[in-house]
């Protein structure tokens, strides 16, 4: 057994050893150890190097507030590298068999760090160093400053492999959520659960009990603290309270929504099959009790960061929870009573307590007598002016302070220095709620003030100190919460014996006799911010605490200023010359402790990263080698390459085949809305620009939908099936938006209309059949409708049977060829597709994807809303003026179209562009200028919206929005590109079959 472990003591299992490695060296710890407690048991304090100066550092805490002892952890190298995690707190990470831990932030070895040269050069790195240094010359930025900063910045190293773990999430609804299972939280949960409330109790530690775990000498209701704790937990379990350990409340959001991150497997030797690593809980609680306790503050003095210098409360925890003495010879320096008890406990456990140094002139007499009785020297009214020791504290210099004057120094030899600057309530979660803080002059700290949520705060978290008071305060909070939830509750006050109440003082940096430029007194250990940095920031003009924070980076590290904020405030307030409440605290933000990206992502990674919608025909496309493109949430077949074709070759083949014979296309993603009711036609007249009254049942029309501003929002072919029934189609991406817009008008502007809307997008699978042979392929499969040119002309719709399936059959064309769109119930989509493929075989039927569809429509000058329009394009701009029902008294967007800027000259209009060299294809998005010789910056008169190589025409074609475009037919415009200016002629957008003869089949 290691030298510092006390046999049988603590809450660890002395019968089970757990082996692990740290920086390649093997160690043995006990089941229940953290990495920090196990290393301390071996006398190892040096666990890391600081961020900026690479100073040697050891743990200062025994909990999640730890700023120094940050390690990288993994389950091994190689394949397991994906489970490497940087910046784990050694004070929190539980031992597991085979745990591999490494120290961080070192160049070379931990004990000899080349980066420590920064420490010797510290006068070069004052507050605001970055802002002052990397200003000039400009040319140094890319080559020198940024690479150097990037190399130096950040803590730890990023994992190099994909994380193989899974992460989970759940919603949880609870009458009452209690955060923190220390004495107050336990009593709150008990009081509420006894009253019949549905309670959830969470704690970030592996076991519940909070401070009681570190104070076993307390007696509650006549039982030793740990016996009382077991009883309380058993009762909570029996009352049906959901008890969650290893679960951190990371954020407090509106209306009592609390985010909890639960660690499920990091403590396990082996990861069970199917077990997620962490789970994010989104808890909605009717009431919340925050019982998070208080955080112990360090004292700020020269050399307060040396390994072996730690918080007194932490030493007490290592002793009682893990049976570890943090040293043989301890000096205590404190401004609060609590550290005296730590000294007594350590002395009891066999360590030599050299002295208790109290900054107060007259500490409580009872404590002083007890110290003397134990033979511990008491140095009241003293300050600490320095520590010595290379990788571990070896001595401390203390001096008396009389009337503000620092007296003669005295050297005390020690191997650990336990400090306490008092306690500050953990205000983080309360602060997330934007509740106001209140300065308490007596305890010189901020307490929770005005609440904004249905929340109770209990115990040390609101400045209540001592077990009797904390237990009673928790019980009251639980009872209050239960009462607020309509239950009858009683707040029982348990009897406490051997209580350890206490008070203390708050300090700025301790008085010293050292010259100020020789003082290295750390306030923020993680970011290496000293008291001097804070004072310099104030001298250089920072007055707001928010500015001081950003200039010095105090409190900006991953510990969220848990240890540094209050000390930083005391010093900044002193420097500004204002009382602390007038300077105020910076804002605490979620998460409370560093949280993995995995926990936030939850199930949203890999195949379930987001919804991927697929059509009923998608399976066929996949089996036939389709390449996909994402279109809103859908994945759509982009093109169907054959035998090693690239996209251009495949698209050219698909285009030619369709124009020569017949092509088949999956159009199922089109939005579809059933508009039904006696006022259906009136509704259509009001929504769309087109007139609908005279559209006969059985006929279709291309509809344009505007916003009230007059700009195009959507388009699509709309069929009238009966007087009262329209089948509306929308763009793929616009389906939900259009339905929402229509519902909005119906519900709020025209509630008098007797018409209703139903989305049928996914009711129907839609197959488009296009090409001169389309009718020959389709006709044998159709029953109940003559589809000859005479009986079923262009822009017709009918309900009939296709391939044996009930169908809605449209004759329309988005390609310029004879075209049909067949809608069948979705489950039959693939069967219909396969029937058409079979029927089309003799004609060489060719499946084509969205890219070919885009080329084919561009050859005809048909727009794609969202590609050729951008929310500032009117129907006239797009050449769709013909689709406006000018005689209609009103429709959505009619008044908008008459806005002064929409009727002004020189608007950008959609035109065709033909490059002078047909082999050159313009780039979509490229800017257009009239005079390529003009000086920079050139006047841009428009941009290319669509551009393709047209196999049909044997050259490139493009569409563009150009200022006054329709007036420029035949003119040459210029498109400056990186490798030269491209000349193009302005043309009509109807590149192919401008008279539409091919539709007359």
């Amino acid at each position, binding site marked *: 057994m290691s030298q510092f472990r006390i046999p049988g003591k603590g809450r660890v299992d002395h019968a089970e050893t757990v082996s692990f490695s740290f920086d390649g060296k093997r160690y043995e710890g006990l089941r229940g150890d953290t990495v920090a407690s196990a290393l301390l048991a071996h006398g190892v304090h040096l666990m890391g190097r600081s961020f900026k100066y690479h100073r040697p550092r050891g743990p200062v805490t025994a909990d999640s507030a730890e700023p120094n002892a940050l390690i990288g952890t993994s389950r091994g190298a190689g394949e397991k590298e994906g489970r490497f995690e940087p910046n784990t707190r050694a004070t929190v990470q539980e031992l597991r068999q085979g745990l591999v831990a490494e120290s961080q932030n070192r160049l070379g070895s931990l004990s000899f760090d080349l980066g420590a040269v920064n420490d010797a050069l510290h006068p070069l790195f004052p507050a605001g160093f970055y802002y002052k240094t990397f200003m000039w010359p400009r040319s140094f930025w890319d080559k020198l400053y940024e690479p150097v900063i990037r190399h130096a910045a950040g803590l730890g190293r990023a994992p190099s492999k994909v994380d193989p773990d899974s992460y989970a999430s759940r919603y949880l609804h609870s009458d009452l959520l209690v955060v923190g299972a220390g004495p107050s939280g336990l009593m709150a949960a008990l009081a509420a659960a006894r009253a019949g409330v549905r309670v959830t109790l969470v704690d970030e530690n592996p076991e519940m009990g909070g401070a009681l775990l570190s104070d076993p000498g307390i007696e509650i209701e006549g039982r030793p603290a740990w016996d009382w704790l077991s009883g309380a937990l058993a009762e909570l379990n029996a009352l049906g309270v959901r008890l969650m350990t290893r679960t951190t409340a990371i954020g407090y*959001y*509106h*209306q009592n*929504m609390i985010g909890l991150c639960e660690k499920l497997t990091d403590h396990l030797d082996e990861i069970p099959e199917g077990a997620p690593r962490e789970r994010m809980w*989104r808890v*909605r609680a009717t009431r919340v009790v925050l019982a998070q306790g208080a955080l112990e503050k360090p004292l700020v003095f020269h050399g307060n960061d040396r390994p072996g210098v730690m918080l007194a409360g932490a030493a007490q925890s290592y002793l009682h929870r893990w049976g570890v003495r943090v040293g043989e010879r301890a000096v205590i320096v404190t401004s609060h009573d609590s550290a005296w008890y730590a000294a007594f406990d350590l002395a009891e456990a066999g360590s030599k307590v050299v002295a208790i140094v109290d900054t107060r002139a007259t500490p409580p007499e009872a404590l002083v007598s007890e110290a003397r009785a134990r033979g511990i020297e008491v140095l009241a009214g003293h300050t600490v002016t320095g520590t010595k020791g290379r990788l571990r504290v070896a001595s401390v210099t203390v001096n008396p302070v009389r009337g503000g004057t620092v007296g003669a120094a005295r050297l005390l030899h020690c191997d650990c220095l336990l400090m306490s600057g008092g306690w500050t309530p953990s205000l983080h979660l309360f602060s997330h709620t934007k509740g106001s803080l209140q300065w308490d002059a007596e305890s010189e700290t901020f307490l929770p003030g005005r609440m*904004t949520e249905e929340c109770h705060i209990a115990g040390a978290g609101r400045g209540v100190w001592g077990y009797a008071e904390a237990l009673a305060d928790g019980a009251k909070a639980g009872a209050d919460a239960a009462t607020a939830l309509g239950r009858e509750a009683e707040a029982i006050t348990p009897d406490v014996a051997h209580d350890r109440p206490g008070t203390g003082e708050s300090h700025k940096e301790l008085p010293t006799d050292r010259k100020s430029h020789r003082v290295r007194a750390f306030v923020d250990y993680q970011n290496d911010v000293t008291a001097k940095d804070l004072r310099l920031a104030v001298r250089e003009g920072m007055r707001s605490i928010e500015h001081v924070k950003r200039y010095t980076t105090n409190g900006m590290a991953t510990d969220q200023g848990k240890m540094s904020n209050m000390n930083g405030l005391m010093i900044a307030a002193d420097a500004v010359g204002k009382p602390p409440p007038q300077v105020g605290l910076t804002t605490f933000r979620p998460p409370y402790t560093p949280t993995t990206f995995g926990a936030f992502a939850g199930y949203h990674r890999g195949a379930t990263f987001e919804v991927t919608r697929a059509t009923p025909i998608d399976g066929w496309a996949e089996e036939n080698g389709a390449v996909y493109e994402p279109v809103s949430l859908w994945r759509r077949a982009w093109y169907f390459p054959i035998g090693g074709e690239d996209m251009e070759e495949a698209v050219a083949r698909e285009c030619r085949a369709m124009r020569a014979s017949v092509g088949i296309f999956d159009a199922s993603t089109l939005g579809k809305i059933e508009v039904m009711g006696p006022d259906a036609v009136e509704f259509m007249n009001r929504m769309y620009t087109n007139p609908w009254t005279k559209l006969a049942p059985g006929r279709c029309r291309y509809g344009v939908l505007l916003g*009230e*501003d007059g700009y195009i929002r959507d388009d699509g072919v709309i069929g009238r099936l009966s007087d009262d029934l329209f089948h509306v189609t929308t763009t793929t991406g616009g389906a939900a938006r259009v339905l*929402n817009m229509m*519902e*909005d008008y119906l*519900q*709020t*502007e025209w*509630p008098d209309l007797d018409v209703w809307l139903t989305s049928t997008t996914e009711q129907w699978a839609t197959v488009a059949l296009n090409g001169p042979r389309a009718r020959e392929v389709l006709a044998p499969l159709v029953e109940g409708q003559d589809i000859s040119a005479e009986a079923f002309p262009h822009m017709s719709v009918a309900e009939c049977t296709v391939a044996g399936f009930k169908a809605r059959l449209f004759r329309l064309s988005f390609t310029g060829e004879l075209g049909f769109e067949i809608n069948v119930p979705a489950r039959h989509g693939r069967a219909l597709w396969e029937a058409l493929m079979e029927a089309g075989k003799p004609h060489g039927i060719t499946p084509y994807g969205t890219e070919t569809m885009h080329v084919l429509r561009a050859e005809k000058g048909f727009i794609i809303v969202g590609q050729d329009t951008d929310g500032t394009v009117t129907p006239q701009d797009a050449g769709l003026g013909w689709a406006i029902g000018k005689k209609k*008294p*009103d429709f959505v967007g*009619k*008044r*908008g179209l*008459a*806005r*002064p800027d929409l009727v002004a000259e020189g608007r950008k209009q959609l035109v065709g562009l033909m490059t002078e060299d047909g082999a050159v294809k313009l780039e979509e998005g490229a800017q257009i200028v009239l005079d390529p010789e003009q000086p920079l910056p050139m006047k841009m008169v428009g941009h290319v919206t669509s551009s393709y190589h047209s196999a049909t025409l044997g050259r490139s074609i493009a569409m563009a929005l150009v200022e006054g475009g329709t007036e420029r037919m035949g003119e040459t415009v210029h498109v400056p590109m990186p490798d030269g200016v491209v000349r193009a002629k302005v043309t009509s957008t109807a590149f192919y079959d401008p008279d539409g003869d091919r539709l007359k089949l």
Partner: protein
Amino acid sequence: MLLIHCPYCDETLPELEFAYAGEAHVDRPADPSALSDEEWRDFLFIRANPKGPHFERWRHVHGCARFFNAVRDTVSDRFLMTYKAGEPRPDISKLEEAQ
């Protein structure tokens, strides 16, 4: 994530079921063509954007699908009340008193 009371479902439900839909009580004019350019501009673009209670529209889009109105304090992000579409604009001073 807020909780929102749907006046049609008469239930207080997670914000994830709802969608914001702009300022409330901006009625589409009966005859837009009769409006001057300035009046039409005001209807289209000019909004109150207050610091404090804001009359706004929401839709219970993943629930009963109805549009409804709400008064939300833009400072605290709290809903003071919700009410059905078509109901008159509530008196803010009375609402604040009730708070």
